């Protein structure tokens, strides 16, 4: 089959390896790029039980042994993993009959591999910055954080174009790495509304999580500082004083113990359920039967969970920050509250839970909005145009 162009996508996560938002992003982007006559290769880290090579929805997926070398810490592991990823991708690029046109790296986690491959094969490199170390940590405080920040800067320097998924991230990345405006392109993240199709009765499924008289308040995300989960936990008693609810926390992270202790000290273990990691089909169902989905992030480059909740027709209460500010239109497609403010968050959640008509309006508007604006097919078309633009410029360079 003849393709318009061939892309080598590098990502440290791809399903079934799901650590954060990059994994579903790569999955949907690659799949829809493939539908646009683009041959897509994804090179990613291995996962127990997942094959070293498979074709998923027309996308060639290769998984590299990423725990080959002993590593003293996470950051060193990342660089060692890049050494292996680069080696395997180099061999693959040489072996396959398709000629790779562009390398596309996602976040600093694959910076070294992407940069090395760019020079060795003399092909353009694109980088998507899903997040930054400065944003994640609210500043740079340690040697490791500075090192990661500089690695990100290096990646954006070496990239032909830097893609960010919100206007907020564009201005953040521009400021943090001092990039020229014409190097940055905004392409939103997408959501697949069909994931949430289905009209089966979820009453029984719901009863696994909450009593019929309890409203379900859902949080989905890593239990880390930037996600603001502690703000929600602090809002719990304020909400419970007005409405009977069950708080379901999906995800895990280094703050878990600390959060559990706060919940215990408040005597609310029966109201807050730490669900841990949930497989995708179960999560999709849970999102559909949630009365409100909460995104209390302090830093959020995009906020894919908010989109997912909108697609699942669960009303969203989110902090007015980062990409969330762009996704949510206050009082129309969701409720925006002050970031890092438990009172404001409690107000928003309570309002949605107590006003059924308001909640219904938000739900309907939000669903319409995601269908119009955050459709993967449109996003893939936009991305393809960026590839073509870069290749046009590249063809005039001395590397071509």
């Amino acid at each position: 089959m003849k393709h318009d162009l061939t892309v080598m996508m590098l990502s440290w996560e791809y399903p079934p390896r799901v650590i954060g938002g990059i994994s579903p992003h790569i999955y949907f982007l690659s799949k829809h790029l493939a539908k646009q006559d683009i041959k897509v290769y994804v090179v990613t880290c291995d996962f127990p039980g997942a094959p070293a090579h498979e074709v998923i929805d027309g996308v060639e997926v290769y998984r590299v042994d990423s725990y080959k070398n002993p590593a003293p810490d996470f950051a060193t592991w990342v660089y060692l993993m890049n050494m292996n990823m680069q080696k395997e991708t180099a061999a693959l690029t040489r072996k396959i009959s398709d000629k790779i046109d562009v390398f596309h790296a996602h976040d600093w986690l694959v910076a070294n591999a992407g940069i090395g491959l760019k020079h060795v094969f003399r092909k353009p490199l694109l980088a998507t910055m899903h997040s930054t170390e400065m944003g994640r940590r609210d500043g740079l405080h340690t040697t490791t954080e500075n090192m990661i920040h500089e690695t990100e800067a290096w990646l954006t320097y070496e990239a032909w174009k830097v893609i960010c998924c919100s206007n907020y991230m564009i201005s953040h990345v521009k400021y943090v790495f001092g990039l020229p405006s014409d190097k940055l392109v905004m392409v939103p993240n997408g959501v697949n509304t069909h994931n949430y199709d289905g009209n089966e009765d979820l009453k029984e499924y719901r009863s696994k999580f909450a009593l019929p008289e309890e409203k379900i308040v859902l949080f989905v995300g890593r239990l880390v500082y930037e996600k603001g989960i502690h703000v929600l936990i602090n809002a719990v008693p304020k909400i419970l004083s007005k409405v009977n609810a069950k708080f379901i926390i999906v995800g895990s992270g280094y703050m878990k113990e600390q959060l559990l202790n706060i919940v215990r000290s408040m005597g609310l273990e029966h109201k807050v359920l730490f669900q841990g990691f949930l497989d995708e089909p179960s999560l999709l169902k849970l999102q559909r039967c949630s009365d409100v989905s909460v995104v209390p992030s302090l830093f959020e480059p995009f906020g894919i969970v908010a989109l997912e909740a909108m697609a699942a027709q669960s009303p969203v209460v989110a902090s007015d920050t980062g990409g969330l500010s762009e996704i949510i239109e206050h009082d129309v497609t969701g409720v925006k509250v002050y970031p890092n403010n438990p009172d404001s968050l409690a107000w928003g959640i309570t309002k949605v839970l107590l006003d059924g008509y308001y909640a219904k309006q938000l739900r309907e508007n939000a669903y319409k909005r995601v269908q119009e604006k955050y459709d993967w097919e449109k996003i893939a078309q936009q991305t393809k145009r960026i590839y073509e633009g870069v290749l046009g410029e590249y063809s005039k360079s001395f590397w071509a």
Partner: protein
Amino acid sequence: MRVIIFSWEYPPRVVGQLSGYVSALSGQLASNKVDVNVVTYDDSATGQTQEASGVKTFRVANPVRTHIGVLTWVLTLNQEVERAATNIYYEAHKHIDLIDVFDWHFIPAAVTLKNALDLPFVFSIESIEDQRSPNANASYNMAIKSIEWLGFYEASRISVKSEWMKEEIVRIYDVPKEKITVISSDSDSLGKEFQKMYGKMAEAKKNET
């Protein structure tokens, strides 16, 4: 014959013995009409120079200035080594016979270049981690050993300075004896000995294709 030499130290940067040794060898090779391109690290004096002997040097700095350890420092420096080596490769219209890598630091770059561009490499040993840090099995030391192992595995040939080192490598890394060439460092014909080894490799590569 055209070769690229990787060494993390080269004059004026002198950390240990390797710097002087690689410099002497490069000079001898150049005077034997080998086109020698040395890729090395220097924090500030980056860029290309040509020595009186004819040896060309390419110095790269680390693009990431802050590091938590030698490993992260080395692993980010390797991409710059790849960039410099690839520039030499394309400038030479892809006519590079081989790369000679001195010690473990730039093994990742050599391995990538081998897999991407089919450039064979020699792994030349000054010292190994097992001897530098005897009995150390912290993950930091093990990671360095794993990079050395990768080098021994992917290299077309290994060169050492003594029979003793040859035995050590066979003992510790289980490398087949036949893969190792011993070239005494006090030999006056250092350059000639290396050239002979390079010649055999180039010959073997030609027969392969």
